[in-house]
């Protein structure tokens, strides 16, 4: 205990006797650590924010889209093929386990007219399952019912931006609107979901059965009704991979694909998307951290510089200590502890400053931030490591001084 306390006390005296110099040395580390903490917290905050938005879209959501189709060697974009059908959706709902609901939809761009307002909007024909599957919530009015769906009622539910564009502050529920060739009655408005991933805010939803009366829904060669996409939710997130496999083999059979054919559809689970997004933002966070780490490195070089000066200045002290019987490792340890002590203090202050900065940034509403414990621990231990690394050479220099020459120096 005492053996450790004495070098620490000596280091403390060394730091305190040169207050301004110690402060300036520490400042480099403080800025470096604060930069790492605040930038990493901004990166982490952005990541959490994006992931939580994905969560609102439904983390147990799986989306099936048609694959790219190739016609005489010319490929279209993904989703261009017309391979998914309502019948596919029904088969999935019947045959694949762990599925809570299946929502096929077909969407098309239609001209929508309300009074003098006229806009081209994406109109999506959906089943009643669509709302729970996509975590949608009603802001006013209602969603259409199962019986509305069965009889192909001409009713519409508006996304929040569509409502803002067409009706401004007025209440659209009960109003009529012309949509292509038919007149529909607005029965509800959706809560805004925020602008992400083809937001539902910009869409108008009508029963798929009504859609089929308005737009000629294409049919496949087998006479099945084509849909744009099928979304579904799994009852058990753990089983998402299994469900994806089952759907793949079911659809391959239904689409009569040979073993050498590529899938003519794409299945993406929200889990996968969340993983990809989290990986991308993680990389960004790491990049921010790396840039901040450069300033930490510069701070470390500052520490080395000061320690070299300090050794030079205290040559006589080193000589005295050696005459009193200090061994090389005593001297070496003394200066190394002093360097580590400086950077440790700098690390602690840097964490506090970085935390305050990220708190201010998030409370000003500029960005969401998240200071995580592992980054704090990392930053403090890295700063101590920097002290040990950059203090090593000056300390070694000090320990190697010849005692007689050191005693003679002024």
């Amino acid at each position, binding site marked *: 205990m005492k053996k450790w306390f004495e070098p620490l006390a000596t280091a403390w*005296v060394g730091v305190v006797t040169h207050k301004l110099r110690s402060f300036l040395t520490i400042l480099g580390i403080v800025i470096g650590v604060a930069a790492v903490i605040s930038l990493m917290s901004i990166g982490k905050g952005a990541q959490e924010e994006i992931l939580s938005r994905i969560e609102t879209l439904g983390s147990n959501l799986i989306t099936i889209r048609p694959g790219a189709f190739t016609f005489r060697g010319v490929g279209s974009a993904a989703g261009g093929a017309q391979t998914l059908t309502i019948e596919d959706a029904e088969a999935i709902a019947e045959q694949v386990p762990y599925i809570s609901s299946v929502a096929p939809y077909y969407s098309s761009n239609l001209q929508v007219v309300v009074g003098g307002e006229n806009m081209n909007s994406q109109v999506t024909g959906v089943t009643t399952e669509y709302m729970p599957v996509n975590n949608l919530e009603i802001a006013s009015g209602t969603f259409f019912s199962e019986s509305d769906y069965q009889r192909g009622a001409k009713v519409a539910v508006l996304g929040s931006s569509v409502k803002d564009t067409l009706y401004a502050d007025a209440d659209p529920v009960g109003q009529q609107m012309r949509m292509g060739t038919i007149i529909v009655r607005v029965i509800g408005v959706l809560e805004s979901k925020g602008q992400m991933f083809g937001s539902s805010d910009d869409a108008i939803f009508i029963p798929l059965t009504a859609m089929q009366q308005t737009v000629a829904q294409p049919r496949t060669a087998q006479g099945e009704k084509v849909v744009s996409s099928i979304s579904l939710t799994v009852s058990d997130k753990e089983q998402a991979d299994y469900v994806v496999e089952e759907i793949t083999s079911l659809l391959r059979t239904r689409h009569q694909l040979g073993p050498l054919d590529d899938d003519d559809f794409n299945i993406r689970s929200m889990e996968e998307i969340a993983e990809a997004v989290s990986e991308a933002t993680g990389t960004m966070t790491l990049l921010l951290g790396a840039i901040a780490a450069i300033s930490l490195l510069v701070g470390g070089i500052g520490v080395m510089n000061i320690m070299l000066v300090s050794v030079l200045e205290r040559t006589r002290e080193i000589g005295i200590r*050696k005459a*009193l019987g200090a061994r090389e490792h005593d001297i070496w340890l003394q200066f190394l502890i002093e360097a580590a002590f400086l950077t440790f203090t700098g690390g602690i202050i840097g964490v506090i400053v970085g935390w305050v900065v990220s708190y201010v940034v998030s409370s000003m509403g500029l960005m969401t931030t998240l200071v995580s414990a592992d980054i704090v621990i990392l930053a403090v231990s890295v700063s101590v490591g920097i002290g040990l690394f950059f203090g090593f050479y000056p300390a070694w220099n000090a320990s190697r001084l010849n005692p007689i020459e050191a005693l003679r120096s002024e």
Partner: protein
Amino acid sequence: MIKLQDITKVYPMGKRELTVLRRVSLTIEQGELVAIMGPSGSGKSTMLNLIGCLDKPTSGSYSLEGREVSRLGSGELAGIRANKIGFVFQTFNLLPRLSALANVELGMRYAGGVDRKQAMEALTKVGLSDRANHRPTELSGGEQQRVAIARALVKNPPLILADEPTGNLDSRSGEEIISILTSLHAEQGITLVLITHDANIAHHCQRIIHLMDGQVVSEEKV
């Protein structure tokens, strides 16, 4: 206790070499009080540094308390300095940032550990118990040298080496320092080797060794 045999010390000076000690042989018994005199450049300090294990001879053998130390490594020499030898310098060599007491404690730091009570006793022995918390800059030259003596004796070494301990002091303080040193020798039987220019001081000792050009030219018993 100290036995130097054919000790030669050569310093490289650029391309030339400077021979500071030439085949010096010398024996100092346990409990002796010895003065080394000689003009500057005669090799007094080099000899004291060699005896104090701060330096190694170029050739020759040195045995301290029967142990051959001329070929030891720096770590072992540091151990001998820590436990066996107390130094008193002309320029005191106290650490300016530390109090008198802390300076004395530093004398024990590398010799097994600090004991505040023992450090205080050493300060009392040199008559400075009331100055324990003063910094060196707040003390007179004589008082600083007394702190340095307390630092040297606090670990109870068998050997104390003093390199012109009164060189920076007025004659009254010098007398005080010499009387402290001689009484330590008389009461505790410490072996004391000191370098001096002052014949009066040298005559307080039992034996005077005269050095000239790196060689012992004469010895006289007092």
